[in-house]
């Protein structure tokens, strides 16, 4: 019994790490752009497709495919960022929802148009199971947890020490003041968006080996998983998002075990609504951004 619970918690942490990498990008984008990005899962999908393409068509090894997936997504993010995301800075919330939905439709269905709608098999990565402290995991999952930690530490360092990181923090705290002190808000918005999209792509490429199936519409689910996390984590709050992702991962895992897998996808929004009833501003105050 006890072992089962511990094992499920470990399972939760594994899926929580995946959510964390995706959600952290989305929450940063929200912090700077103040827009809920309904297209965020699509960058996850693009990353996966980029890597799949590299492996399937050019027979490249998986580590190279990771780079290609992330870079390809970043390039697309530059285009989307310039054409769309920069322009929704300061627009009302519903404009952001519509614009990002539009982007999601375009990206998703363009991939379906180019590669066909059917699902593909992703055949890279390190899928052999290893046993660690009595728990069996695919090597890839250990990689995901490690990358998750690196991303978290890296982001913390970036927003504390680097120039662009400080600017991101500044913009997320007070957009009017930034214009006054000479921070180019649009520039910061673009870079935050590219970083966020890149992280989503990284998460996609890293999970592809364990998730195997790759298809154009796969991003939607990720978007819906991520939304409650970023709200719970306090919009724009990186640390809060990490904790919320872990909480959701573990809660989902326990619900899948003790209640039923069919309720798993409801956990995110159900937890969110309970949390909001208790603390209307999320678990972690949105004030403590980044």
């Amino acid at each position, binding site marked *: 019994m006890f072992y089962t619970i511990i094992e499920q918690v470990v399972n939760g942490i594994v899926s929580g790490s995946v959510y964390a990498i995706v959600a952290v990008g989305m929450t940063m984008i*929200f912090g700077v752009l103040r827009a*809920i990005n309904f297209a965020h899962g699509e960058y996850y999908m693009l990353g996966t497709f980029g890597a799949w393409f590299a492996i399937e068509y050019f027979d490249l090894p998986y580590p190279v495919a990771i780079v290609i997936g992330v870079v390809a997504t970043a390039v697309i993010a530059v285009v989307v960022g310039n*054409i*769309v995301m920069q*322009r*929704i800075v300061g*627009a*009302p*919330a*519903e*404009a952001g*929802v*519509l*614009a990002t*939905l*539009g*982007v*999601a*439709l*375009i990206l*998703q*269905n*363009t991939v*379906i*148009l180019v590669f066909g709608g059917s699902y593909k098999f992703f055949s890279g990565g390190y899928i052999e199971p290893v046993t660690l402290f009595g728990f069996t995991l695919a090597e890839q999952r250990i990689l995901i947890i490690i990358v998750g930690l690196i991303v978290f530490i890296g982001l913390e360092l970036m927003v504390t020490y680097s120039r662009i990181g400080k600017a991101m923090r500044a913009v997320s705290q007070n957009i009017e003041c930034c214009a006054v002190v000479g921070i180019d808000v649009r520039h910061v918005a673009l870079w935050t968006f590219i970083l966020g999209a890149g992280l989503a792509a990284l998460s996609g490429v890293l999970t592809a080996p364990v998730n195997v199936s790759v298809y154009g519409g796969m991003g939607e689910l990720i978007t*819906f998983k991520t*939304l*409650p996390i970023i*709200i719970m984590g306090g*919009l724009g709050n990186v640390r809060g998002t990490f904790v919320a992702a872990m909480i959701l991962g573990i809660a989902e895992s326990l619900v899948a075990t003790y209640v039923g897998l*069919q*309720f798993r*996808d*409801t956990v*995110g*929004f*159900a937890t*969110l*609504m309970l949390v*909001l*009833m208790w603390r*209307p*501003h*999320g678990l972690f105050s949105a004030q403590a951004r980044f």
Partner: protein
Amino acid sequence: MTEIVRDQTVTAAEHKVATGPDLRVPFGLGLAALACVAPLFLGNYPLHAIIIALIFLLPAHGLNLLLGYTGLLSLAQAAFFGIGAYASALLAVHFGTPFYVNFLAAGLITGAIALPLGIPALRLRSTSFVMCTLGFVIIGQAIAKNWISLTRGDMGLAAVPRPYFALGPASFTVSGTVGFYYLVLVIAALATLAVYLIVRSPAGRNMIAIRENETLAESVGIPTWHYKLVVFMISAIFAGLGGSLYAHYLTVVSPLTFQMYYSTTMLIIVLGGGAGTISGVIFGSLLFVGLTEALRVAPELRMIAYGFFLLALVFYFPNGFAPLIGRFWSFLERRK
């Protein structure tokens, strides 16, 4: 939250009426007459498209009251649409009640469910509120899937009967596209009238005040929270009524009715037509359905084109396409 300037507010419209000869009344009457005779020259498929547009018009009217007039962005319309569809279908399938009973019950049940949901949700601000309303859709779907004894789960409720009316010994069933078209047309017209009356009432003015500046509205004594709750409920009732029509028209209700798709569709209709205007929403629903159907010409490019349409809408027509109609009027008046 809503900084878009909606230039066609009630007052502006009122003064326009005062300032010059109004072409919109004859034009509106002409359009209504056209709608009445449409089945004479339209085939089943265009009629079907109009029926869908008119069904979607109901939840869109509801969302317009909420977003366009009160300034609250909600994605919950799909949840209430689904509740209305299920309520209506369950009544029809289990009890064989006549259409008007199902239809009204769907509205009442949806409103009754919206009230307790709105109380906690409306305490939330902006993004949290949006996500909470999206949560209603997701959780609604989970309930529809798992409360099998009531909803039959994923198997859905099939063979929902065509709308029938019973008055004493006489009964009458609406079948066929043309019959349904007239039924939906009448209901949509009544719904539009209802929205018009709400918007023109003193309450409508208070709603606009809340949209413009909530704190200021509070400071002049408007109980904003109560208004938001009432409007949330009204918008849910509209969605529920739309769901009822949907159930009787498509004859199938499944958990798929609880989909973000419907919420975003309503949002696109309202913003595409012009939030905060009634004619805009009517125009928006026809435009939306016309566009998605027209794009069937190229199935594989359809959703991509639709995505670009959304971007164009956001960036080039932030007030929707309704201001274009306004420009059309002033163009006509200049010609005279």
